[in-house]
């Protein structure tokens, strides 16, 4: 049985998979849950994650180093997914408070992730931010919001202040910009 989709139809379209699982038997869904437990980080199976939860979906590993740095003052849980299929699966299971996703991703497009999450009563409360380095301008922002239900649209490269502001606004939290040098000095007892 496939560790990614809980079955063996990884190449099927996301719509097909969604419809398949909507109509699936309880036994099959239970069987799938066991697979998801293996795919997801242990903290989401054994305990409740500290809320709010942010899920970052991007195939660029640099982004997975930069974003935690930008959100260093965020008190919650930051999860990482590296392609669209993994991101959608984690989002559907964990139901994060916020999904920050790249637009163009392997396997499932980030805008489709937004569409699927907003289309389901189970996940529609998750806020979604779509990021892109390609589609720039108000036209694409409007399209991402109107057509795919995204709550916000950010252009790459990531602007630290803008990202903090968007996260603060969508999650109603305050993220202080951590003065890293000072933090290091404090940690070192200087």
């Amino acid at each position, binding site marked *: 049985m496939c560790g990614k989709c809980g079955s063996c139809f990884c190449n099927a379209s996301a719509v097909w998979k969604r419809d398949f699982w909507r109509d699936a038997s309880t036994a099959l869904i239970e069987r799938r849950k066991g697979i998801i437990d293996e795919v997801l980080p242990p903290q989401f199976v054994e305990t409740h994650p500290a809320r709010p939860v942010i899920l970052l979906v991007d195939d660029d*590993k*640099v982004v997975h*180093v930069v974003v935690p740095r*930008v959100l260093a003052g965020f008190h919650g849980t930051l999860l990482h997914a590296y392609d669209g299929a993994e991101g959608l699966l984690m989002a559907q299971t964990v139901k994060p408070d916020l999904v920050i996703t790249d637009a163009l991703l392997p396997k499932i497009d980030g805008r489709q992730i937004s569409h699927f999450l907003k289309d389901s009563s189970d996940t529609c409360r998750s806020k979604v931010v779509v990021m892109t*380095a390609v589609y720039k301008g108000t036209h694409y922002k409007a399209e991402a919001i109107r057509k795919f239900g995204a709550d916000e649209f950010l252009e*790459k490269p990531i602007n630290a202040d803008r990202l903090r502001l968007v996260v603060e606004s969508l999650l109603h939290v305050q993220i202080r910009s951590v003065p890293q040098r000072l933090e290091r000095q404090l940690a070192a007892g200087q």
Partner: protein
Amino acid sequence: MIADLRDLSDGDEVFLREVLAMYLRQSNEFVTAMRAALRANNTDLFKFSAHALGGSSLQTGAMQVANICHAIQCSEDTTRVALSAALETVEFELERVTMAVAQEGWRATSQ
């Protein structure tokens, strides 16, 4: 080249080196994927890998590489010769980035 990252790092050279090392390692993977796509005559995969490399370069501040990758994505010339030449240019620019990073590393340790 890495002014924004320097701002974000707030003088944390460890973070800066981590990002740059990640970028260079990942870039090599994207170039390998582009080479494989070229061999397989898979233009879509070639352009997708160029997009991924371009996005990462933009984030890191390697603007020349980002610009070439953007040009690859926009180009309608998808002949093997054109893609091969584009890939060579990407590799040349990445070599320059590697040298610049090495120089930055030397500066950081010499301060």
